[in-house]
């Protein structure tokens, strides 16, 4: 029998590790099993990207994106349900179950306001590196080439940006 394609082979080797990792990330062994199963479906007929250096790291990354997509879809559904109940609902008391969605929306608005204030304060080089990576989708190496600096400088800039943007003190 022919050898399985490299991504499938890596998946077979890493399956138990992946379930353990996503159990830690999601707090639920059942969710982790689901995710790792979805990951298999996703990679089963995928050609590995030509610039892939590590099949294992690729699996972790694709799995993490699936996890985040799932979380996002759940939040969207919550927001939609909330909007619908606002549009349809009269002045009766809000069901208790709706309150977290409203809290979440207010919290996310405040978060975004803070974020904008902090984006404005980034030093220009930090902002340039961060923008190329985050908004233009360049890899660390590509950003380094574009800005004419080393890859480790790029990683320092991106870290500085993340640190500034996630700090908890007032803007």
């Amino acid at each position, binding site marked *: 029998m022919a050898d399985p394609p490299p991504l499938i082979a890596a998946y077979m080797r*890493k399956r138990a590790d992946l379930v*353990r*990792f996503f159990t*830690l*990330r999601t*707090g639920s062994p059942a969710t982790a099993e689901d995710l790792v199963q979805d990951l298999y479906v996703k990679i089963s*007929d995928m*050609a590995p990207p030509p610039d892939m*250096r*590590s099949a*294992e*790291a690729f699996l*972790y*990354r694709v799995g993490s*994106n699936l996890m*985040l*997509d799932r979380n*996002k*879809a759940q*939040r*969207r*559904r919550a*927001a*939609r349900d*909330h909007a619908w109940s*606002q549009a349809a609902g009269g002045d009766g008391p809000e069901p208790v179950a709706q309150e977290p969605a*409203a809290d979440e*929306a207010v919290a*996310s*608005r405040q*978060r*975004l*306001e803070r*974020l*904008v*204030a902090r*984006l*404005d304060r*980034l030093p220009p080089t930090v*902002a*340039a590196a961060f*923008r*190329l*990576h*985050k*908004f*233009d*989708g360049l890899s*660390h190496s590509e950003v380094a080439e*574009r800005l004419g600096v080393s*890859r480790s400088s790029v*990683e320092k800039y*991106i*870290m500085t940006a*993340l*640190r500034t*943007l*996630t*700090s*908890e003190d007032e803007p």
Partner: protein
Amino acid sequence: MTGPSDRSPIPDAVRERAAAWHVRLGSDRAGDADWLDFEAWLARDPVHLRAYEAVEQLWSDLDALGVLAAASQAPSPPPPSNVAPRVPRAARAARRQPAWLGALAASLLAMVVIGGTFGGLSLWAGRPRTETFDTALGERRTVALADGTHITLNGGSHLTATLGRGERRVVMASAEAAFDVARDPDRPFLIEASDREIRVVGTEFNVLHQGGAMKVTVRRGVVEVRPKGAHDAGPLARLTKGQSLTHRVGQASDAVGAADPDAALAWTTGRLVFQGERLSEVATTLARYGGRPIEVAPDARDLRVTASLNIGSQDEMLRSLSDFLPVQVERRTDRLRLSLRR
């Protein structure tokens, strides 16, 4: 997930480590060992996971900002935003004025106000926004929509995308595009091309719409094709992996057949694969990559081409073709002419 520890502040040192992990794992050099080290770090203290989730949350908030900035800049031509989808990637990257942050900030605040009137709707579920994407001949570009869908546009393409609350809709003018659609069972993904509509739940496939003809080729998942606007009618066809449908505008019938999805999507990785197409069709395809118009003499039109070409300049591609076809290339000022070699 909840508990008293959720409210406790995250120490600066931990926040810093979490940011460093996000950068390390997002590097093109990350390997298996990095992820295993990361897992060990996460397992050491629950606050580590909270700190890392805060970085991920930031990352997705920024996606929302990017989409907003793009949408708010689209209607008025200058000054272009650095993240506006109409501006080609190279041009965007060349501009480095720090004003981009200001533009982002302004559009966000506007959205926050709109958000307030919606009763605090999150950005993800906001008003439908239409984005327009164009590529020049010979340009190839991948764009990400806010729902996680990726569209790779081949040269000379024009399409618009609207992410609505109940559906996601792409309208393709003359274009070739490969779609990797994010799964969202609550919001079907619809593509209009000629007088056909393609309906998707989550899949990867290629659509070519040019010169009144359209062709859909599926690599993964299932798509349905129906007449445009006929929402209640059953689908004309359901296509699965390895199938394609071709249709000419105005005609009632559609032809479904087997197709090699890797060949149909080869252009996304810089190759063109032909499997027995007529030379006249090959010439139409090559026109998408720039250069002079190509005319094919009647005696050469029906030559069958089986070849795999690297996408390059028109000259390079024609040279490769004439290596294994009995054709000659005549260079005229306004066009090229392919005819049987005598």
